[in-house]
């Protein structure tokens, strides 16, 4: 089965992220950028499904042209082709506009299964995969820790507080995978070289049937009004053991309801 996986290039989560004081958007220029680690899990899941069912994987991404690096990594891991929607008019797009663009690009691939991370590691809205499903009018299976495809049915496991749910839906379907769903493979060095010659389509907004007025900063329906730094994490409490140390730790854990 042919599978689409959505990916995004983000500032290295290991670095110190910075907000632009005027736009309140994350600074993406002049910082180390990587394929979103959550998307690596998505790529691995897509590759495993394609390998098990004899299909191919198409990477779909929206972003500035230099997002090609993230796409190349996914191609080096083994994906077969990519679609990058890159247009200056898309800068500042909100989650809904992003979803519209991605859904249009996915629609043109003819694939019936879309895999995505649950949320990006920079924006964290967590809404894009579900919005894509809505726009395509497909069901969405979210927070998967395992995926199986049996004929026309996709089945996932979803972790719950007491165990896990098993949820299934008929194709076509959008699936989101959680961070621990698998161990993403290393791109093989041969794969890195092969990625150079894999096809990357760059459809225009017009080709995707997207009205430029509905995307970008102008078309955005949400606006960030203010940003406040998160509170500094308070220093922990050191429990000195005067004979009753264990008791005090147990009592403390009980107040957190973890035991």
């Amino acid at each position, binding site marked *: 089965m042919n599978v689409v996986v959505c990916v995004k290039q983000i500032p290295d989560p290991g670095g110190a992220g910075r907000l632009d004081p005027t736009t309140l958007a994350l600074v993406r220029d002049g910082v180390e950028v990587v394929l979103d680690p959550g998307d690596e899990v998505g790529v691995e899941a897509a590759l495993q499904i394609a390998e098990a069912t004899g299909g191919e994987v198409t990477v779909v991404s929206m972003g500035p042209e230099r997002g090609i690096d993230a796409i190349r990594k996914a191609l080096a891991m083994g994906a077969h082709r990519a679609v990058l929607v890159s247009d200056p008019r898309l800068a500042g797009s909100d989650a809904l506009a992003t979803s519209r663009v991605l859904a249009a690009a996915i629609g043109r691939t003819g694939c019936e299964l879309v895999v995505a991370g649950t949320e990006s590691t920079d924006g964290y809205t967590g809404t894009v995969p579900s919005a894509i499903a809505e726009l395509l009018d497909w069901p969405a299976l979210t927070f998967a820790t395992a995926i199986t495809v049996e004929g026309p049915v996709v089945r996932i496991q979803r972790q719950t507080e007491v165990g896990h749910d098993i949820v299934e839906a008929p194709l076509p379907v959008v699936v989101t995978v959680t961070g621990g769903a698998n161990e993403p493979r290393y791109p093989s060095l041969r794969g890195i*070289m092969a990625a150079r010659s894999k096809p990357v389509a760059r459809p225009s907004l017009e080709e995707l049937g997207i009205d430029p007025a509905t995307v970008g900063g102008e078309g955005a329906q949400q606006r960030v009004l203010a940003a406040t730094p998160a509170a500094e994490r308070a220093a922990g409490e050191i429990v000195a053991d005067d004979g009753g140390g264990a008791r005090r730790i147990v009592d403390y854990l009980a107040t957190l309801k973890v035991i």
Partner: protein
Amino acid sequence: MDFELSPEQAAIQKTARAFADEVVAPQAAGSDLRSEFPIEVVRQMGRLGFFGLPFPEAIGGVGAGFLAYLLALEEVSRADAAVGITLEAAVSLGIAPLATFGTPDQQSRLLPDLLAGRALWAFGLTEPEAGSDAGGTRTRAARDGDAWVINGEKSFITNAGTELSRGVTLTARTGEPGAGGPPRISALLVERGTSGYEVGPPYRKLGWHASDTRPLVFHDCRVPASNLLGAEGGGFRQFLSVLEGGRVAIAALSVGVAQACLDAALGHARERRQFGRPIARFQMVQAKLADMATQIELARLMVWRAGALIEAGRPAGRFAAMAKLHASEVATACANQAVQIHGGAGFIEDLPVARLYRDVKINEIGEGTSEVQRLVIASHLLGHGGSVTALLEEGPPAR
């Protein structure tokens, strides 16, 4: 001039770095302690394509070029020099001569497994009586009908006795010197399991405990005439270009170890407190760190420079010798200072610096001692084109 890596080189460096940190580094101390060849790490490197990096796709390589190989080698060696030398010897000494001089039949028989890291091939040049002076080779191969019969010994051979080892390319006399001329020296392929080919027990070494190093003995060892590699009597000249690549690779390995020394020293200098402040606040420690970083940067640039020449197929002899000489001496100096900055803790095997200190010295010896590198450089300067024998026999030209 442009010091930027290509997107593919940068991606290979990044992948090698992640692999080195996540897979190679965690096993380094344990494999060293147990003197255990890390076969699973080698297999995994093989599957990812490390062994095929510099070789063209036409013979089954990855086709990433020589510089990409050097970048990957530095990263792996930073995590574990023993894994670094396993990769270096397999690629620069094992595969490179076969890839350069092998017949199509030899290549199709051996290269697929070697390039995929499913098997390792060794290179036997050093002998009890011949090292830097390769002309002193005693091992002989006599022609007998359709075979060569080999007798002799080789010393300090890497990758000959592991579970993955498939055989060795060895150098041997195939003819006696004429009046005053050099002996005829040729290279022969000997596969493991050939009668009369004996792989000795591993040496106990100062460092590189997890790499495989053994003596080899050949006693009436018969190999088919078709196992000749390159021209009969071609001697070492035909391998010089290959060995040049090996020298740059040892330089890259040295840069990796030197970088590991700096990283460890930086970490310790920030954390260790004396006189109420981190020792990184003391200028004497700062000077050590600054000097280490500067020398490492210079060594790395020399590796890249020599590597770029080799990748472009241009003469690299003196630059290869300079890179090997400088990088290996820098690495030893960095290990020395890293231990010094660690103080007593640097003398204890619980931290990696003690291992780095033991592992680093050999870089000034293997694949041409620092003394030989200086002779090679002097030979270039004095108009003898890098030939040490010409330099020694003719002396500097009269001016």
